[in-house]
């Protein structure tokens, strides 16, 4: 197990290095000039040239690359070209909103999705199953921003139950923090609930048709024991995989939700950085996100051993 974890951690560094090189080259080769963006729309070529020189953007690409790698190995992820602040400071400011939204969405999606999936599998073809089919179609087909606008219109604008937009840090109080996250969480969770519920249902159906389940029923096991003790545990590996993938995807995929609900998270930080060609921010976020993806996958792999004793590393 220790060897497995060590190898995976080493592979994390390799993945991050590859992402770093790729992103560095991609950004330098893509059209756009941060100096022009700093100088503004009406700037003269002279203003832009001066800024480029000062930022070191005229240096040869290998020089820029070596400088960047050297600084990063020393723990310095650079300074935002625009904000003039350390990139890690900017990322840490944006981490809380994104993590809050992602974690709440996962809690909602896993709780509702797994429950929904189990019920649908238990009563295949019944009302819950049909409802799940309809809900899944809705969850998959309606984009998150449409759901978001509908929620804003109905719950915030019409009913005045919840705020339209914004984010309150948790240090500002649990209730305002939570209240501002209800609509974005539910809007974002729609698709994930549908996804997790469908996978849970399919996985549970497969297990419920196994011989040992029939044996358990013949021996008089209760419905609760059959579903949660025998079936769910055996159906758990694919469900856990889906949850892990979903969480990793969520971290990087909340841009639309953050935009619609005006949540100052990592997604918006990256989009703004891309629009402005703020290279240090884009590079750092993508490298850190790739590392996070690998770590989430590692955590999921390790979690398999908890629910399936046959899996050994």
């Amino acid at each position: 197990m220790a060897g497995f974890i060590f190898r995976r951690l080493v592979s994390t560094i390799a993945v991050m290095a590859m992402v770093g090189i790729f992103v560095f080259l991609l950004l330098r080769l893509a059209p756009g000039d941060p100096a022009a963006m700093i100088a503004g729309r009406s700037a003269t070529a002279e203003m832009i040239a001066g800024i480029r020189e000062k930022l070191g953007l005229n240096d040869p690409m290998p020089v820029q690359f070596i400088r960047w790698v050297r600084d990063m190995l020393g723990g310095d992820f650079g300074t935002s070209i625009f904000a003039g602040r350390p990139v890690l400071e900017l990322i840490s400011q944006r981490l809380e909103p994104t993590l809050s939204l992602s974690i709440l969405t996962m809690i909602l999606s896993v709780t509702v999705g797994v429950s929904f999936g189990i019920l649908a599998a238990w009563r295949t073809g019944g009302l819950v199953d049909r409802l799940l089919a309809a809900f899944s179609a809705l969850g998959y087909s309606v984009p998150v921003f449409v759901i978001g606008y509908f929620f804003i219109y109905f719950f915030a604008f019409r009913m005045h139950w919840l705020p339209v937009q914004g984010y309150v840090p948790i240090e500002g109080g649990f209730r305002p923090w939570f209240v501002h996250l209800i609509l974005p969480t539910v809007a974002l969770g729609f698709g994930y609930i549908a996804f997790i519920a469908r996978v849970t249902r399919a996985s549970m159906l497969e297990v419920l048709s196994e011989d040992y389940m029939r044996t358990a029923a013949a021996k008089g096991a209760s419905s609760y024991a059959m579903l949660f003790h025998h079936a769910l545990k055996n159906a758990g590996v694919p469900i856990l995989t889906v949850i892990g993938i979903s969480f990793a995807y969520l971290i990087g995929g909340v841009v639309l939700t953050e935009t619609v609900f005006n949540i100052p998270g990592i997604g918006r930080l990256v989009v703004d950085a891309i629009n402005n060609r703020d290279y240090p921010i884009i590079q750092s976020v993508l490298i850190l996100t790739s590392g996070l993806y690998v770590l989430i996958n590692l955590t999921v792999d390790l979690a398999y051993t908890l629910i399936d004793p046959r899996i050994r590393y």
Partner: protein
Amino acid sequence: MTISRRNLFRAGIAAGAALSIPSVLRAQTVPVDARTVRMMNWGVPSVFDPVITTSQDTTDHAAAIYDTLFALDSKFVPQPQMVGKWGVSDDKKTYTFELRDGLGWHDGTPVTAADCVASIRRWAQIRPGGQFMMARVQDISKKDDKTFAIALKEPLGLLPSLLADILYIMREKNADTPATEAVTTNIGSGPFKFNESLFRPGASLTYDRNEQYVPRPEPADGLAGGKIVKVNRVILENIRDAQTAVAALQAGEIDLYTQPPADLFSVIESDPNLVLLPLYKHGHDFFLRINCLQKPFDNVKARQAMLHLVDQEAFLQVLSSDPKYTNTVTSWFGSGNLATNDENTGWFKKGGDPEKAKQLFNEAGYAGEKVVILQPTDWADGSNTSQILAGALRKIGINVELAASDWAGVSARRSKKEAVEEGGWSIFITSDTDFSRSQPMTVAHLSMNGEKAWYGWPQSEEYEALRAKWADLDAVDERKALARKMQAIAWDYVSEVLLGQFTAPIAHRKILTGIIGMPDILPLWNMEKA
């Protein structure tokens, strides 16, 4: 089916909790502080130095925390702002300025003449108005702590107007920063203080009233007069989604939204709590900029063809379907100032004149060369007007390619002088305030000095000779006459073509009053919240 007492009890608690949630939550949605104004302006500035950038959000930021030596009043006449007494020598070559009493930095130190001298020098390194001024300046010197002088090689009547440009006075130690390096501190002497502890880069920015600020005694008039702050705090939010911003405005979560999209005007107009208000009645002039170095527009006939091709109303329809916010504009100097005139505007025709444009392209010897239009996909107005233009050109048989990219891509590509096959360009669309067109000395795109000119690099020595005279004329009639001559040349040369004027209104809640309307800048002082 039986219902147990326990289940009934549980159901009752659950129903009660569910019904009470809305009232509990409702409290969270109501703004609490009537002395705080929340707004979605251009966003939250990421560059704080008004010298290094021309971005609107930075200019507004600077107007809040810095002060200026002179400021334009509502009639665009420069009036003293930080300056108390000032005078000019008999030979009109030496201007002396004395700072008024009570000026202090947000860190508690007094504003000195040395701060002003350093700020002027830094601004003059990089801004067109400053560069023009410095060509005539012999010396800028501090006389005492409150007095400084500008000695000129030859008279420059335009000097107070130039000093009323985007020239914000910074502390000497900040102003000593090279003009190509951004000043990142936010210590000014203006009516608002930047609240560092509440700053969330890219997300929100807070200004607090500067209690120590001493406003001028005159009433506020444009950017001039007393900058009296009537609220305690102004918070800029960065709400990127227009629908959300309008919903937030309707719900009272913000008080002001300066960039509502035209397709939501009707929603705002139908809300009794909201007002749509054009801050500056002549708004922005949209124009297409032509690359005069490359084919086919290195030929003046091809450029003139563009003048005849454009149907301004078609472009304006894209910018706003409501005609009360749009106007056609034909003067090189815009439509709302003393230089506005009708010289050499015979090209303007309702609906455009595509046949004439086609004929001019033929006379230019057009042989199917590719015309590349830079299309900024992240700027809806620019993107949509680019498509209209491409369609109009294709209709008369021009080989058009829309080069779609975000504004960063457009910004980078427009600086390339090469042929389109080598990454160059032919046309891009942009906009500027109508007021800017009245400032040929300080606005980069109104020059025609070849390599030194703005993108497109037009070159007309005749026009430049007239432009040089602009700064020396004091009499209004003389300047009007000069404007006619400049316009005659400009519309013959055609470095850019006007597409129309859009007076984009801001949207605000009715409880917010006292908003000052000036082109390019949204002053935060004088506004009041009921």
